Each structure stands twice: as structure tokens, then as C-alpha cells.
């Protein structure tokens, strides 16, 4: 059945630099790199863009989506709702994909196979291109026929959406630098799509892009790349790891940057050791062993890996060993939705392991902060002699984000914390590993091999006195546990401070958020304004919380904690740690595994307000 070529019931979507394109593909068909080229083309035209890959836990043959939001206003969170244009390349998900086109929007599809009658919606416009037939004719090799299908539709979109063809050409040239033979066939495939669209449709459509200059210094990169690179800059030398989505690429990127940047020029030898461990227990055990021995070490994991690392985290907390753990959170519990995003390990990480434990958590909001916090985490771990957990998430880690370029201050030197040299040991009368000589809860450590006579001690997870000797004396135990608490208080003064946005006159509403929910906040504020509401905001960047957090809470009447889990875990942590009465904090928690939208937040605020209103009327 051929769809009508004009719209009957509805007017076409009209938009310039403000719409969403949704690609529906089959995973394992090479669509990712073509779709990425599309997003990058928008970027190179100077228009803010974000891209979300919504993929299955599968290697080949399952539906996968790629959502590109183009927004001159820099609203780069997932918008939610239907898309102005859907590129439907997967017969399996076609019905669903047709439904996901916004009223008045467009469906670009492979018309090599005809649509059925129920595939026809009267309120959208169909853009049929016989992509398979074109590729069948043009290419002999089956893999090429498959791969170039993706490139053909990108070419067609260029014509339809007014993307500069030269920009695409330069992207192809960059992508295949060093494999020059592939450049011409890729450009040819782009042209096939471009020509076809120009010949068969009125180009450009009523939704289109126009060159702008709105990117400034920003770059487009995923958080895991940034975290891996941050670890290189932070001086990490030892890594233990075990593969798990979505954390794997942190290690892969660290490894590939090390291949380039950490090879001793004189000998060709490696200035790092990367050990693929047998499981996550071993992965963190390796990092802890290295941290104990004075190397900067880390591991990265997700979901189940966090559960497995718990016993070791308790050891590192109690024995006071620096180590960095990158947690790229995914939807739990158990295997959960391994390829969906969440912020649901807050409690599990803040209090990981049995006994009284508390861990330092960092909450990056974008790849720039992934880079900064990753490097910073090694300083904090060394300063505080404790695990530092970077709380990223799948959306941040695996999707490309438009983010401020990375920067590094060459004059800043690593802070290696309180580690005694042989000379310093000579000058100390009576060294005790767990003596709090500075009153900040942080004691002086020594590294194996430092001094032939002095400073050696036995590191253990059992209770010990100030001289690292085993003890079951209650007073020694309590003294040590309280010192650890004092150290945690010191931590609250050196971890990144919250980012607060409030005017001279405080708004009634306060929004507390962290991590990737940040992307939806500017848009949320704009939408609240449309409802006549103003809000101040506070972005948590670390745990332990800074005093400013309590102050912000005390200064506002109506507070919302925005997060991506079911149970409002950050809210619980605030209530527990800052002694805030529960009714003060309302929860806006989304746990569907997709990145946070402003619509969800605004709805949460409105629901609360109308709830409060009707409650008042009743009483």
C-alpha cells in the first residue's frame, strides 16, 4: 500500500533548529556510526544538539533507537514525547515507530517493502525511499549493502533537513582518516540518498536546520571517555577491572589513551598496568593492593559489580587505603535493565559494606565534570586515604553530550596526601600509623620499602590501636571509629561544593538535583515560569554534603529532590545525614530507565502544589 503524499488532517510541523529526530534501527547493523555522523553534522553547523542511544542488552538483531534533539535554546535533556521525524529502518519495530511520530511529523522509511494498511496514519507525512533496493543495485558485498543503507538515509536527511553536504563530507574524511579507500564510497552513498530525496520530495521540509554559531568552546563527547581520560591526567597507573555495561568503555578509553600517552619514549615500555581480573572482587582487590603500595589505582563497574565490591570497600574504609571506584550506574536491582540509565546506587554506595561505613561520592553532571572529578578523585583518595566513588550513569557515560571543553592547569601538582619519606620517619620519635597528629582525622601513612628500620606496620581490617597493633579494647575501637567520622567531616570541607542558583529574593520553591538530571533543569525553570512559578536550584556535587546544602534547605519552603530511581535515595540520604525532617523534602523520582525530562519534573511540582492545595481545602 502506498501512503498519500500529502497531509490530510493536520498541518505540518514547523521548526527550525528545534526538533527531535528518532532513528529506529536493528542493533549490529552499523547504524551507530552513521547516526553519530548525523549528530556531529548538526554540531558542526553550530547548532546545539544531544544524542541518546536507547539500546538493548543484545549484540545483534534487536531493535535499537537513537534520539537526536536539536535545540537552539540549549535544552539538551531528553525531550520525551513523540518526534518530529522518525527514520524507520527496522521492520520489527515499525508499528511502534510509526506511532512515535508527532502529529504533523514525518516518517522516512525503507519503501523496498510496502506498508500495510494499518501502517497509514493520516496525520503524518511519509517519505518513502527504496533504500534496500538502491543498495542491492549499487553494492555487491552483503556487508556493504547493509552498512551503506545507513549512509544513504543520512544523505537523504541532509537534503530533507537542509544539512550542509560539505559538512558531511568533512566528517566522512575525518572518520576514515588513514583508511582513505573508504572515503569515496561513503560520500557516494551519501550522494545516493541526497539525490533521491531532492528528486522525490520538496526539500527542505518544514522542519530544518540553519547554520548558527552557538557552540563556542564546547565539544561533544561521552562521559566514559572523559572519565578514562581524567584518570590518565590524574596519574592513575594501576587498574583492575572486569567487563560490565555501561562501565566497560571507561577502561577501554583509559587503555587507548594510555597506548598513546603513557608509553615511555625511551624504552617503549608501559607506564601503567591494566589487569583484566577474574571478577569484580579481584578488580577492586587489585586497585586496593596498588593503592596500599602507593600507586594511584582505580576500577570501574556497574550494577552487580558494586554489590560484589562491597566487602572490599569496607576494608579500604577501615584500613584507610586510597582507591578510586567509577560507578556507571544502570537500572537495577539485580541484572535489572542493564542498558538503561538510573541513579539507584546512592544508598548502596554511600554506606557500602557491613558495619558503620560512609564513603565519599562525587556526582558529575556532564563529561567535563567526569574529566575533572576523575582526576580530582585521585587527589581526594590520597588526601583522605579512603575510597572515592564517582557516581556516573549510563546516560552520562555512554551518550555523547555537548559539554565545555576539558581544561588542565599545568601549574597544579598532584596532592599525594600524608605519606612519610624515610627522612621524615627518621625525624619522628614515635611513629603510629593511626595517630591523628593533625586533628583532622587523617593520619600519616608509610609505603612498603621506604625505610629499613622504621615505619613498617601491619595493615588489617581488624580493629587496631594507634600503632596499628591488633586490639579488641573497646576504648581503642571507639576512638578509632570516631576518628574516622572526624575524617569524614574533613572530607566535607574538601570535596566539590554544591552549585547554587538563587536570586537576592529567594523563591518559594527549591529544586535539589544532581548528576544527569542537571540537563533538564534550565528547561524546567522555563516551563515553571510559564505556570507562574519561580524556583531556586541546588546541584549536589558530592557526599558528604556541605553545610550549604542544609542552609539551602532551611531557606526554602517547598523543596523537591529530583532523582532517577524509585525510592528517592538522595532524599533519604539528605534526611539521614543532614537531619532534615522528611516532610520538608518532596521526591520527584523517575525510574523508567530513560534520562530525566523537564516535563516529568514540572509535572511533579504541579502535582505536589495541587495536592497541597486540595489538602488545604479539606482541612
Amino acid at each position, binding site marked *: 500500500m502506498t501512503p498519500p503524499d500529502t497531509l490530510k488532517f493536520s498541518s505540518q510541523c514547523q521548526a527550525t533548529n528545534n526538533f527531535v529526530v528518532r532513528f529506529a534501527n536493528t542493533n549490529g547493523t552499523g547504524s551507530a556510526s552513521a547516526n553519530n555522523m548525523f549528530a556531529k553534522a548538526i554540531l558542526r553547523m553550530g547548532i546545539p544538539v544531544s544524542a541518546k542511544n536507547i539500546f538493548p542488552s543484545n549484540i545483534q538483531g534487536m531493535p535499537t533507537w537513537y534520539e537526536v534533539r536539536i535545540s537552539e535554546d540549549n535544552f539538551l535533556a531528553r525531550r520525551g514525547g513523540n518526534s518530529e521525524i522518525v527514520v524507520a529502518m527496522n521492520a520489527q519495530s515499525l508499528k511502534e515507530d510509526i506511532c512515535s511520530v508527532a502529529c504533523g511529523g514525518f516518517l522516512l522509511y525503507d519503501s523496498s517493502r510496502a506498508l500495510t494498511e494499518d501502517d497509514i496514519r493520516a496525520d503524518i507525512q511519509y517519505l518513502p525511499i527504496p533504500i534496500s533496493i538502491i543498495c542491492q543495485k549499487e553494492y555487491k558485498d552483503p556487508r556493504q549493502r547493509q552498512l551503506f543503507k545507513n549512509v544513504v538515509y543520512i544523505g537523504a536527511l541532509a537534503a530533507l533537513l537542509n544539512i550542509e553536504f560539505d559538512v558531511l563530507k568533512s566528517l566522512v574524511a575525518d572518520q576514515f582518516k588513514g583508511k582513505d579507500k573508504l572515503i569515496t564510497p561513503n560520500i557516494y552513498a551519501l550522494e545516493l540518498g541526497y539525490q533521491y530525496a531532492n528528486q522525490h520530495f520538496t526539500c527542505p521540509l518544514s522542519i530544518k536546520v540553519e547554520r548558527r554559531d552557538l557552540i563556542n568552546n564546547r*565539544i561533544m563527547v561521552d562521559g566514559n571517555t572523559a572519565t578514562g581520560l581524567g584518570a590518565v591526567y590524574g596519574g592513575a597507573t594501576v587498574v583492575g577491572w572486569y567487563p560490565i555495561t555501561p562501565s566497560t568503555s571507561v577502561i577501554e578509553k583509559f587503555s587507548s589513551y594510555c597506548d598513546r600517552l603513557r608509553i615511555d619514549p625511551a624504552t617503549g615500555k*608501559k607506564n601503567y*598496568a591494566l589487569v583484566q*581480573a577474574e*571478577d569484580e572482587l579481584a578488580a577492586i*582487590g587489585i586497585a586496593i593492593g596498588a593503592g596500599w603500595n602507593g600507586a594511584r589505582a582505580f576500577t570501574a563497574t556497574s550494577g552487580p559489580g558494586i554489590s560484589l565490591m562491597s566487602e572490599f570497600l569496607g576494608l579500604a574504609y577501615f584500613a584507610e587505603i586510597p582507591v578510586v571506584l567509577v560507578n556507571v550506574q544502570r537500572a537495577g536491582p539485580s541484572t535489572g535493565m542493564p542498558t538503561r540509565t538510573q541513579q539507584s546506587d546512592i544508598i548502596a554506595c554511600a554506606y557500602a559494606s557491613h558495619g558503620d561505613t560512609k564513603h565519599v561520592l562525587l556526582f558529575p553532571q556532564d563529561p567535563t565534570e567526569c574529566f575533572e572529578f576523575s582526576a580530582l578523585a585521585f587527589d581526594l583518595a590520597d588526601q583522605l586515604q579512603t575510597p572515592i566513588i564517582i557516581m556516573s550513569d549510563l546516560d552520562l557515560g555512554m551518550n555523547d553530550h555537548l559539554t565545555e571543553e576539558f*581544561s588542565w592547569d599545568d601549574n597544579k601538582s598532584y596532592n599525594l596526601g600524608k605519606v612519610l619519606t624515610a627522612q621524615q620517619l627518621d625525624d619522628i620519635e614515635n611513629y603510629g600509623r593511626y595517630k591523628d597528629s593533625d586533628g583532622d582525622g587523617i593520619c600519616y601513612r608509610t609505603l612498603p620499602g621506604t625505610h629499613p628500620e622504621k615505619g613498617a606496620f601491619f595493615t588489617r581490617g581488624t580493629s587496631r590501636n594507634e600503632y596499628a597493633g591488633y586490639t579488641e579494647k573497646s576504648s581503642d575501637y571507639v576512638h578509632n571509629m570516631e576518628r574516622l567520622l572526624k575524617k569524614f567531616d574533613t572530607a566535607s570541607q574538601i570535596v566539590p561544593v554544591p552549585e547554587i542558583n538563587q536570586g537576592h529574593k529567594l523563591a518559594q520553591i527549591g529544586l535539589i538535583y544532581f548528576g544527569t538530571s542537571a540537563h533538564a533543569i534550565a528547561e524546567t525553570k522555563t516551563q515553571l515560569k510559564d505556570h507562574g512559578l519561580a524556583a531556586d536550584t541546588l546541584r549536589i556535587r558530592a557526599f558528604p554534603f556541605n553545610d550549604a546544602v542544609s542552609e539551602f534547605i532551611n531557606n526554602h519552603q517547598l523543596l523537591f529532590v529530583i532523582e532517577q530511581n524509585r525510592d528517592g535515595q538522595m532524599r533519604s540520604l539528605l534526611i539521614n545525614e543532614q537531619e532534615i525532617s522528611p516532610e520538608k523534602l518532596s521526591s520527584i523520582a523517575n525510574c523508567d530507565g530513560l534520562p530525566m525530562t523537564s516535563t516529568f519534573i514540572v509535572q511533579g511540582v504541579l502535582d505536589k502544589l495541587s495536592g497541597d492545595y486540595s489538602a488545604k481545602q479539606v482541612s
Partner: protein
Amino acid sequence: MSFIKSKFHHPRIPTNDLGLNYRDYEGSLSTLCAGCGHDAITSAVVQACFELSVPPHQVAKMSGIGCSSKSPNYFLNKAHGFNSVHGRMPSVATGANMANRDLIYLGMSGDGDSASIGLGQFSHVVRRQLNMLYMVANNGVYGLTKGQLAATADKGVTNKAGELSLFTDIDLCIMALQLGATFVARSFSGDKKQLVPLIKAAISHQGFAYIDIISPCVTFNNHKDSTRSYDYVHEHITTAAIADFVPMKKEITSDCASGEGEDICLHDGSLMRIRKIQDDYQTTDPMQAIVDIAKYKKKGEILTGLFYLDPTATHYHEINNTCDMPLNQLTQDALCPGSRVLTGINNSFR
């Protein structure tokens, strides 16, 4: 806390090449049961390190959890030790070794620690060819939790509480041989003459060395039906060869006259001098060693001695091509690529 030992030194107490005496290699006073085999291992380690003139602070003592894993507290007080978590010493030792390839890593574990909860980590540290000496005090039970059967207990034996061992035992020497350890031996805590040279050779060996040390638990596994009791072991132990360790610098003055033995040259030029008792004894074929261990076991005997040694062994850092300078000593200059490089990286994301 372990007790402080008397510092009294006999004026004529012998010293080694570093001018240190035996007591410089001791640790805190043991809190294990009197007669525990583990204490004999401790004293063998002290003697071996003393005789080898190992600088004590250049040793890192790594252990898991158990009576055996406490032992490092009782030797080499001048060395750092790390009593980690149950069954996970291998990963912690791996990380420590990655951070500083120059130290000597002495791992001390139990059969519960290594053959049950830590079997996975044990296997992988062998595979990984970590340069370390890994010792297991094999007593057939979990001492610290009061005598439950370990996975090394022979099938059919009962523990002190009368519980029968129903399943096939795990032999960590066989596993180590199968997984590519380059130095594998079994000994008995009560046979210092055999144990000390093995420890010395294992320390000199540059690669993964495993020594399984039968170490009776006097409190929970020294009864009549036990196959790890002092009596049983004394009666059933057998060795196919006697090995002497001849340090590089010493003239060869060991008991065995030259010509009688076969020498294996270790990495540092020291020799392992082997005097065969059984004609078919060899140290070059790990698969044959497995067969031999099983053959003696079938006869109800415990075969001890050096089972396998590859004098050309390599280890993780050589395979990884890690730089010679210990990673924990690299400075920011060597580690941080700096802002100029970052500009180029930023440009790759535009």
C-alpha cells in the same frame, strides 16, 4: 596485639651479609595455639630470609584471613604486611605487585582461604604469573572457625567433631601445575631441612612460586583418623629427591658432594641442587609431576619436595612490558600529558 619480644641479643649471635641477625627477621610473638604447624612455617620463613640476606623492609607480606593468614604478623616485623579479606589475598598481592615490581612478595594463606572461598583468585594469580611466593598452610580444616573440614581434606576422613569428608579433595599443587605455575613444591612444616631451601629457592625464583606446606592443626585436626596429624604425616611422608639451595655468592659446601646431584640454576645465579632418591624423579615436566603426586596419593603416601621448576620463567611485568621503574615512583611529569596534549584531544571531539 602480639606481644613484644625481648630485645636481648647474644653478643656472638651470627649475622648475615647485611649485618643483620636472625632476630632482625622475627615478628611479634605468635598468638597461635602452642604446637600449631603454622609457627614452624613462620620460623622457616625467618631462617630463609635471614640466610638469603633479604633486606626485611624490601618484603611485602600478603595474606587473607585465617590462623595461617595471621602468621605474617609473626615474621619480618620490619616489613609491611597486609592482612586483607578472606580468600582475596591474590588480588591484593597483584595490585601491590603492579604498583612496585621491586619488592619481594610473600603470600601466606590457608587451605580454606585458597581452596574454598579464594579458589578463583588462587587460580587466576597462578595464570597471571605474578612474581611472588605463594604459601598455603595445608591443615585440612578451617582452624580459625574451629575445625570445619576444608576442601583439601581427603575424602573419607573425619574431622575432630566426627564430620565425614564426603567429596573429592582439592590438591592445590596439582592445580598450580596445571595452571602454569613455574615453581611448585610441597613440604611439611615439621621438616625445616626441606622447607627452608625450598623457600629460599622460591624467593630467588623470578616468577610465580607455589609451596603447599602440610601444617598440622593441633587443636582441630591432630586426632587419630586425620590424614593431616603430625603422626600420620610423619608416617606417610615421602620425598623423591632432596633439594639444597646454594646461594650465588657462597662456595658450594652443601651436604651433597658434587657430581652426585643435579643443579638447576635460578635467576640470580643461585643453584637448586637436587639429590634424587627415586630414579624417575624430574622437575621439568609439570604433567608428569601431576601423575607422580596422584600415584603416591593412591598408595596413601604424601609426596613432598620440589615438583616443578622452570628456571627460564617469566612473569606478569615482563609479559605486560611494564616500565622498569616501579609505577608508584613515577612522577607527575611522566604521568600527566598536560594541557597542550589536551588541546589536541579536545579538537578530536568537535
